[in-house]
């Protein structure tokens, strides 16, 4: 591809991103204004300050990426802007006490996203020291067994207070997600570099994959036993299975893995009260609608109440759902923005998945490909798990909706991972093959 073509492509991409960012800005600011009018009956500054900061952050990110990573995918930043801006409006609506904290996390997240996407560095360090990264992640996770707390005061102790500020908490499992993806990408990259399955025959070839499969399953079960973090355990295992399929191309592994997941679920059902509760509430919530199934039933009521066009921002009753700002942000969107809003969120994540996997398919190095695919699958699976939980397709797993739900660790790590995707998409090698079809 000639330099002129590349320049034209970059120019076209710039205008695409600008136009999409403008649309996201229009949507977020209109929603914030509507919320202000609905709650206060006037345009109040406290409802517009966070969106204004968001606008500044997105404008700056766009400018910096434009300057230093012009060949990036033009859809990723607008998707990030749309979902995170929507999330801010939603937190203002559902849990205004957390708005400023979330705005700060978004600021940090955007800074990290831009830094990861534009700084000149090499990913080799991630690939080479995979065991170090994984050990670090697991150590942090183990630390929660000793020092773990729950900021809400009750529930699983999955957070660590930061040393410099005991009032700020970090969830190590969020970091572990990325470290695990880096480890697996590196592991499969090494395997591919050393010849892959083509040169391995019989049991040895299978052991290369079955060994990690069982190991990973065991790790996730342990995670479930230790922390009772059903969401993280499911997410880790699903991401692993997807990468395993990418590396091995064997449906049988995928089937075996899903079988193991089902087995773990059955074991968990008979062993852990939290799993039993969630499965029972999912299978038939109606007899205990005001008791143990209250959360999922209220979530379904919220989805149903939204209709096609929604109750209007600030005019529904999503706060009947316990922990709505974290686990059930999607249900709140369905109630106040209706089917049109909730399907738009589904479409946004579908687009994110599509673009992420497109990047994975176009980068040259296997490590980069696995990394892009792993990150994308992590986003996609996490969004799928919570949206499927809210709509009663699956039992609830207690994960957040990336970029939308309240949660500092989640926002920070999701931004970092999106930064990596932007970095991978913006490298010259990818761009030259064209993201534009």
């Amino acid at each position, binding site marked *: 591809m000639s330099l002129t073509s590349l320049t034209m492509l970059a120019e076209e991409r710039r205008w695409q991103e600008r136009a999409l960012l403008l649309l996201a800005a229009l949507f977020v600011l209109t929603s914030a204004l509507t919320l202000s009018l609905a709650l206060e009956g006037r345009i109040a500054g406290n409802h517009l300050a966070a969106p204004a900061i968001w606008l500044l952050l997105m404008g700056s990110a766009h400018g910096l990426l434009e300057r230093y990573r012009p060949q990036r995918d033009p859809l990723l930043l607008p998707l990030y802007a749309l979902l995170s801006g929507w999330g801010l409006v939603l937190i203002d609506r559902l849990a205004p006490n957390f708005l400023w904290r979330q705005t700060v996390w978004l600021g940090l997240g955007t800074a990290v996203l831009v830094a990861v996407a534009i700084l000149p560095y090499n990913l080799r360090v991630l690939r080479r020291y995979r065991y170090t990264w994984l050990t670090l992640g697991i150590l942090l996770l183990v630390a929660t067994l000793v020092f773990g707390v729950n900021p809400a005061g009750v529930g699983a102790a999955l957070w660590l207070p930061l040393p410099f500020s005991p009032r700020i908490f970090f969830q190590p499992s969020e970091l572990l997600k990325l470290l695990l993806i880096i480890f697996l990408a590196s592991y499969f990259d090494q395997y591919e570099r050393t010849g892959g399955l083509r040169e391995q025959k019989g049991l040895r070839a299978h052991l290369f994959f079955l060994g990690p499969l069982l190991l990973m399953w065991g790790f996730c079960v342990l995670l479930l036993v230790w922390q009772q973090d059903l969401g993280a355990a499911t997410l880790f295992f699903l991401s692993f299975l997807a990468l395993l399929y990418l590396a091995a191309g064997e449906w049988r592994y995928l089937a075996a893995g899903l079988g193991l997941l089902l087995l773990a679920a059955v074991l968990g059902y008979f062993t852990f009260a939290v799993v039993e509760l969630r499965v029972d509430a999912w299978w038939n919530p109606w007899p205990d609608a*005001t008791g143990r199934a209250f959360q999922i039933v209220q979530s379904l009521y919220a989805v149903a109440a939204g209709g096609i066009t929604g*109750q209007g921002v600030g005019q529904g009753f999503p706060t009947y759902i316990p922990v709505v700002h974290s686990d059930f942000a999607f249900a709140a969107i369905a109630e106040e923005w209706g089917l049109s809003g909730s399907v738009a969120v589904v479409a946004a994540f579908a687009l994110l998945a599509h673009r992420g*996997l497109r990047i994975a398919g176009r980068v040259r190095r296997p490590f980069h490909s696995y990394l892009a695919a792993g990150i994308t699958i992590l986003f996609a699976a996490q969004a799928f798990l919570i949206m499927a939980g809210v709509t*009663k397709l699956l039992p609830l797993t207690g994960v957040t909706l990336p970029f939308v739900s309240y949660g500092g660790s989640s926002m920070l790590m999701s931004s970092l991972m999106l930064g990596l995707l932007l970095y991978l998409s913006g490298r010259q090698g990818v761009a030259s093959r064209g993201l534009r079809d």
Partner: protein
Amino acid sequence: MRRTRISHLSIGLLLGYLLIAVALVYWTVGRGTALAERPDNPRRVEDELRIRRGQILDRNNAVLAETMGPVDDPERVYPVPNIGPAVGYYTFRYGTSGVEEGYDAVLRGDSDDVWEAFWRENLHAAQTGRDIRLTLNVTWQRAAEAVLGDSQGAVVLLALPDATIGALSSHPGYDPNRLDEDFEALVADEQAPLLNRASQGQYQPGLALQPFVLAAAAGQNLLALEETVADANRPVQVHGLERQCATAPPQEATWVDVLQNNCPYPMQTLARSLSEAELAAIFAGFGLTEQPQVPLTVASPPAEPVVDLEAALVGQDALTVTPLQMARAWAALANGGMLPPLQLVSAVQDGSGVWQAVTPEPEPVAAVPAPAAEAVLAALPRPEGYREYATLALAGPEGNRNGWYLGLAPAGEPRYAVVVVLENSENLFEAQRVGRALLRVVSGG
């Protein structure tokens, strides 16, 4: 190879998201209504709270009930205390009754227009109720409350000739403003203040039936009011008690004297010329065996009003009547024998806020020929310029008595009809005092 697998993963993820979109459509469109109507869905309550319920106005547009307060915490306010029996109540916890119940759909602003309902549903537009105008008059209503005082009973005032209900009072009553606080106590109260005695109180009519039976008998040429009656003051046995004329009639008493002195024996002699079915038809002709068509909780009439003919002729049989039924029958006599429909709601607003008159039902029908009705009225005493009839009716085997008062004002061309019933009344004058006092207020006397 890897790119093919990535494509497979991409398709798998997109299919997963498609499944979520389908699930969203299922819960929103397929199950939306069913979930919205589930009794444990708090949004039902919230939606109900958001409806700005319409006002209930009196005939001069004075407010009888209105919704006030902020949108998320509205309050139904009744400016006239103790108006509960006349307009009913609306509370979030205990539901609706009376006019509030009968015209609930209008007051809520429910629409029969399919398109309007569709847009409102899908745009989640706020539902605003429509106003209704009653035939009540606040001044008369307050007067009725005042004259009834602490006496246990009911008062119904009709404006003639249309038989529009001008006042309706029941005591003991309740303040609908305090229903949430007082409901349990009201339910437990032995005096049954939640019972609307005007429309639900089923009272033994006793000789209060006398004007109607005599008018019907005269209308059927079974008697002439001027003809003499033998043994007018002869005692009769009612529930083992001996009863005779309230005041002694003259020696050569006529039917007019029978009427004016509340004599029971001559009434029983009508059994010789009337069958059970014919007497039942007379009761039906005056609307005493049907529920008045008003938006109030009304008592169910007995299935078989005449069991013992002689007892029925002195109002001590199976037939019990409400003051509202009695007022309607009384209005029939005043209207030349035409039984009018009762009317409590005169107009309702349509969706555009324009008032639409309400046509009362059923159509007026002749209860008795006009000359017979006029003759009976002419036979009644005319103190203070009113036509009136009063009697004490045995209210059961224990000898309790209810005082009935039926009054018309002015005596010449009646414009107001009053019916009063007082429970456990000792003498005629109590009900008479209440009725006359109210007539005095409404006719400006």
